[in-house]
C-alpha cells in the first residue's frame, strides 16, 4: 500500500500537467500518453550514458515541453482540432520514443538514479519515502499555483475561461495555449523520468492509457476537495492521484488482474464524471456558474445564495460551490 501511495505522489506530477491543460486551458490533451514515455525514454538513455540523473529529469522536462509545443502548433497554427492534434503527436511520438530507446525496453538495473540514495537508505516504502515524494509533488504543485497567479498565468487562466475577453486585452491566445501545453507536457515528461527511475526501466508501453489516470486524479481530487481556489484545486489533484493509485491497489488486492486496470481506470473516470450529476449531489450545490449562461445569483450583495439554491443549502458554501463544474470547464 505504501508503494501505491508513493506511486500516486510521483504520478501527481503528471496529473498536475493534465490539470493545467484539462481544467485551466479547457483543452483535453492526449499528447500525455506519448510525452510521458518520451520523458522516461530520454531519462533512461541519458542515465545509461552516464548523465547525472537529476540532469536527466530536466532533459525529460524539455523533451515533454517540445512535445507539447508540437501539439500546440498543430492546434493553433495548423487549426487542427485539439483532440486530434494530441492524438497525432502521441502516435508520432511512439516511433520517436522507439528511436530514442533503440529497443522497446531500457533497464536501469545497476545504474545510479535519483532514487538510488532513497533505496540504499532503505526508506522506500516507508514514511520517509512518502515524505520525500510528498515534498516533490507539493513543491511542484506550489510552483504551478505561483505561476498561475502571475500576469502570464492569469492570462493563461483567462484563455481557457473566455478567449474573446482575453484577446480584447491584448493577449495572443495561440501563444498562451502553446505555452500551457508545453508546460503541461514538460511536467508529464518529468514524471515519466521519475517513474522510469523508480521502477528501474523505461518501456515503450508505459504511457498507454495514462491520460485516464491523469483525468481520474484531477476529477476525483476535485470532486472531493473542490476547486474554489487554484491552490485547493492543485493540491486536490495531488491527493486525487494518490487516491487513484490506492483504488487500483485495492482492486488488485481483491483479485483483479493487472490487465484489468485499464478498465478499472475507465470506470473510475466515468463514475467521477457521472456521480456528481446525480440528483442527490445536485441539491448540494449552491450555485452553478456556467460559461455564457445568464447568471442567476447574487444580484445584490445582501441576498446571498437564495436565488438558485434550495433553502437549507447555505451551509454548503465552501468546497461544494465549485466542485461540480467539471462538465463546463
Amino acid at each position, binding site marked *: 500500500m505504501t508503494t501505491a501511495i508513493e506511486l500516486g505522489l510521483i504520478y501527481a506530477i503528471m496529473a498536475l500537467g493534465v490539470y493545467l491543460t484539462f481544467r485551466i486551458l479547457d483543452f483535453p490533451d492526449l499528447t500525455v500518453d506519448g510525452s510521458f514515455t518520451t520523458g522516461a525514454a530520454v531519462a533512461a538513455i541519458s542515465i545509461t550514458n552516464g548523465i547525472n540523473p537529476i540532469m536527466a529529469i530536466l532533459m525529460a522536462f524539455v523533451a515533454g515541453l517540445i512535445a507539447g509545443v508540437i501539439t500546440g502548433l498543430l492546434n493553433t497554427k495548423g487549426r487542427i482540432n485539439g483532440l486530434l492534434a494530441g492524438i497525432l503527436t502521441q502516435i508520432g511520438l511512439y516511433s520517436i520514443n522507439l528511436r530514442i530507446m533503440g529497443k522497446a525496453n531500457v533497464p536501469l538495473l545497476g545504474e545510479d538514479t535519483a532514487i538510488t540514495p532513497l533505496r540504499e537508505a532503505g526508506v522506500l516504502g516507508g514514511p520517509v519515502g512518502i515524505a520525500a515524494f510528498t515534498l516533490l509533488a507539493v513543491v511542484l504543485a506550489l510552483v504551478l499555483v505561483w*505561476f498561475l*497567479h*502571475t*500576469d*502570464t*498565468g*492569469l*492570462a493563461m*487562466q*483567462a484563455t481557457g*475561461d*473566455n478567449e*474573446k*475577453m*482575453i*484577446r*480584447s*486585452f*491584448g*493577449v*495572443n*491566445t495561440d501563444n498562451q495555449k502553446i505555452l500551457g501545453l508545453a508546460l503541461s507536457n514538460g511536467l508529464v515528461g518529468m514524471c515519466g523520468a521519475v517513474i522510469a527511475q523508480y521502477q528501474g526501466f523505461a518501456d515503450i508501453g508505459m504511457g498507454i492509457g495514462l491520460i485516464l489516470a491523469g483525468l481520474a486524479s484531477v476529477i476525483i481530487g476535485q470532486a472531493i476537495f473542490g476547486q474554489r481556489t487554484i491552490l485547493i484545486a492543485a493540491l486536490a489533484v495531488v491527493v486525487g492521484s494518490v487516491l487513484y493509485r490506492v483504488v487500483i491497489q485495492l482492486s488488485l488486492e481483491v483479485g483483479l488482474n493487472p490487465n484489468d486496470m485499464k478498465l478499472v481506470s475507465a470506470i473510475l473516470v466515468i463514475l467521477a464524471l457521472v456521480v456528481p450529476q446525480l440528483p442527490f449531489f445536485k441539491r448540494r450545490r449552491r*450555485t452553478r*456558474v*456556467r*460559461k*455564457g*449562461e*445568464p*447568471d442567476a*445569483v*447574487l*444580484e445584490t*450583495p445582501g441576498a446571498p445564495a437564495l436565488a438558485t439554491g434550495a433553502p437549507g443549502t447555505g451551509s454548503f458554501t465552501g468546497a461544494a460551490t465549485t466542485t461540480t*463544474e467539471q462538465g463546463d*470547464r
Partner: protein
Amino acid sequence: MLTISSVSKTFFAGTVNERRALRGVDLHLAEGDFVTVIGSNGAGKSTVLNIVSGDLFPDEGTVTIDGRDVTKLQDHQRAAFVGRVFQDPMAGTAPHLTIEENMAIADRRGRPRRLATGVTRSKRSRFADELATLELGLENRLKAKVGLLSGGQRQALSLLMATFSDPKILLLDEHTAALDPQRADLVTRLTRQVVEDKGLTTLMVTHNMEQALRVGNRLIMMHEGQIILDLTEEEKRGRTVKDLLGEFEKIKGATIDDKTLLQ
C-alpha cells in the same frame, strides 16, 4: 485620433450570398469625440466596429489610430490602443476568475505580461478605488468570482476594465442592449461619466435612437454600408427620434429614387 479611410468590406464575395457590408466608409474622430452610430440591421454598424478592433480586416482602405496605421494588426495587437465592451455582458470578463484577477488582467493591457504577481496589495487597493466609482459595492467583493455577478454588474465591470487603463479608442458595441432598462440606464450613466472624466475617444453602436441622441457629441447614421447622416453636437441638439426617422426615410427614399432612375 481615429481615421477610417475608404474602407470596404464584402462578405462571401463571389457567391450567391455576397453581401457588401461597407462601401467606401470614411470616418474621422478627433481626440475626445464621442460618436454614436445608429442604423438598421445590416447597415454595417458592427462591421465598422469590428474593423476598428481588428476582428475583421477591410478588403480596401486603411484604419489609423493616433497616427499609426493599424490596418494589418490583429485584434490582440490592437488591444494596446483599443478598449472594448461587447453586447453580451458575459463576453467582457472571465467568469471563473475573481474580480481582482479580472482587473489585474485589464491592468496589463498593451504591456508585456511576465512572471510578476498578478494581484499585489498595492494593485488591490487601486482596484478597490476604481471599483468604488461604480457605486455597486464591488470593491468589497474583490475575491468573488465574476461568474457570481449579475449581468448589469458584469457589464459595469467590463466597462471599467475596458477604460481604466486609458485606451486611445473605446468601442462600445450595443453594450446596454442585453440589459433590463434600469441596468441599461446605469451602464449608460457610467459610460458618460467615464468617457467625460477620461476624455476618451469613443465609438458607440446602439439600436436605441433616443440613447444615441442623448449621449455623445456626434451622431452618425448608417445605411447599406454607408454613412448617410453625420450630425454635430449642435445639429443633434433639439432633435427627436421622430426627426431622425424622418431624415432616414428621406435619405432612404432618395437612394431608392436614384436607383430607379439608373435602371
